[in-house]
């Protein structure tokens, strides 16, 4: 494993612009991240903090209203932003794959599971029907689906949620990608199935040396799964660093509040509910730091000027005036 990052985001910004261009929503704002092969990065934040838009920006598969307006995006030494749509298509699903959050909705109801699992193989590797089918069977086996031969011929509605999520996983792994982005892949599953699925993802990662981006709002999962973590708030990464550091010594008041909101006993699924105030409206962000209206320790400066990136310790950065002091 080389030291050079496999995936690197440098101040990447994705904005939503209205038809007339009058209002701009900064869904992803100057996000810098890097990820090595075999590494797992957790991206946490409330709904609407820009996590999914970040993922779709990496895939370069954004809604029409959204544009990548600045920054850099490099994958395995190549500039992804310079790629043409058809070049991008050959990377998508082949070298960078993504798992969507809703396993019920992300499989096409009218095609068999086998057809849908074999599809990326057939498109990217131009294999014939027969060998693509063999591959699909072994993929189902890899995601631990019993009786794969029979399942291949079934339709999505005949399967349980956990099973479908595994199939979505198999589709993502079909061409042995180097980066896998999982967007809240377990939110709709119940706890036991969740745990099994996470273990499966980890096994797959270990086997293939995958770089994994794990998007979630569940900090418990981050603690179990990830090497490093990036906390997003209102489109920005407000704190990032190794999991251990962030959990033990968070700098940003928002991160601190997040970690405090994890229930200590029992260790059930933790949700971000304990922070006062409303999540920000991205179309009309407050002046200065966007967390400032909800921040218990806001300074005068926070209301006037947005904080830049401060390096707290090697590998640990934060956007907060408290850290900059």
């Amino acid at each position, binding site marked *: 494993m080389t030291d050079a990052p496999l995936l690197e985001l440098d101040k990447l910004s994705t904005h939503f612009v*209205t038809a007339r261009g*009058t209002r701009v929503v900064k869904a992803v704002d100057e996000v810098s991240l890097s990820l090595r092969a075999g590494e797992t990065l957790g991206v946490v934040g409330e709904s609407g*903090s820009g996590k999914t838009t970040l993922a779709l920006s990496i895939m370069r*598969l*954004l*809604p029409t*209203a959204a544009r990548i307006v600045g920054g850099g995006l490099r994958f395995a030494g190549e500039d992804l932003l310079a790629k043409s*749509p058809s070049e991008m298509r050959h990377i998508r699903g082949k070298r960078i794959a993504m798992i969507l959050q809703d396993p019920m909705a992300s499989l096409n109801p009218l095609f068999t599971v086998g057809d849908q699992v074999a599809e990326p193989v057939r498109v990217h590797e131009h294999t014939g029907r027969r060998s693509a089918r063999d591959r699909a069977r072994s993929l189902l086996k890899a995601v631990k689906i019993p009786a794969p031969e029979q399942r291949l011929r079934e339709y999505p509605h005949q399967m349980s949620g956990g099973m479908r999520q595994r199939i979505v996983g198999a589709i993502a792994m079909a061409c042995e990608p180097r980066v896998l982005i999982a967007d809240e892949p377990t939110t709709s599953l119940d706890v036991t199935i969740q745990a099994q699925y996470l273990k499966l993802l980890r096994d797959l990662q270990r086997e293939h040396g995958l770089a994994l981006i794990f998007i979630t709002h569940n900090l418990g999962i981050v603690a179990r799964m990830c090497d490093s973590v990036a906390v997003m708030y209102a489109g920005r990464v407000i704190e990032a660093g190794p999991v251990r550091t962030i959990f033990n010594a968070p700098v940003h008041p928002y991160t601190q509040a997040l970690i405090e909101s994890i229930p200590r006993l029992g260790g059930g699924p933790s949700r971000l509910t304990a922070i006062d105030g409303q999540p920000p409206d991205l179309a009309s962000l407050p002046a200065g730091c966007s967390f400032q209206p909800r921040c218990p320790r806001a300074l005068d400066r926070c209301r006037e000027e947005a904080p830049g990136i401060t390096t707290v310790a090697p590998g640990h950065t934060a956007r907060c005036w408290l850290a900059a002091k």
Partner: protein
Amino acid sequence: MSVSTAAPSRAVGLPLASRLAAFRTEGFPTFPILILLVLVFTAVFAEFIAPHNPEVGSLSQRFKPPAWIAGGSSTYLLGTDHIGRDVLSRLIFGARVSMIVGFTAVIFAGVLGTALGILSGYFGGWVDQVIMRITDTWLALPALTFAIFLAAIVGPSEWNIVIILGAVYWTRYARVIRGEVLSIKERDFVRLAIVAGCSKMTIMRRHVLPNVLNSAIVLATLMLGVVIVTEAALSFLGVGVPPPKPAWGLMLADGKKGLMAGYWWLTVFPGVCIVLMVLSANLLGDWLRVKLDPQLRQL
């Protein structure tokens, strides 16, 4: 340029798509309102605008082409029909017939349908069952065939048409209004009124009715086009407005007599009037639907 062509709202993780949609204010429907105003004006002041008596022609002036064509005269700007009546005057008075039949039928259907919809939605239970079964049955009937059948029984007259159209089309209102009432019924102000001891009639009149009025108005505008086309079809078949009254549908039926001879003005002009009116009503209805009642967008 992004690769994707659709705008999946869920992908964004925030209600962006809906917010963006709200920014895009639809243009004010100047054209349809203008057309409708002109038509209303013509309908009201037909006596003063029309150059000739619409029901009396002179046989010596049969099938005169419009003024700008060889053989036409400026006396009959848009030409004359098979018994020498002035086409322009008939169109002008025809606007009155269409307006009266269209508006009264839409209002009649609207009042009937809205009332039944409110009763059905508010009372629920067997009242709802009975009203909705009848509504569904009538909705299942092919409207045009049914209207023709009724018209054939009761005989042609302007007011019969109004009643028939009302009887055929009230169901559309009843269905939609009932759905609205079901959700309004659960809202706090209605519950408060119940707790405050208001009578059912009072609640329906003071609290429910004002809240479904928007939908009723939108539906009425959209129905106007349907009703006018149906009236024209009935008149065309000879079971609508009785001759010699100048109804547009009737003019098309008369125009058919000169069709093969190439007297195109008898077919083109009444049709253009119908299309303009229906188009305006549809455009206005679409605009009102977006403005007044976002829930009806699916319709």
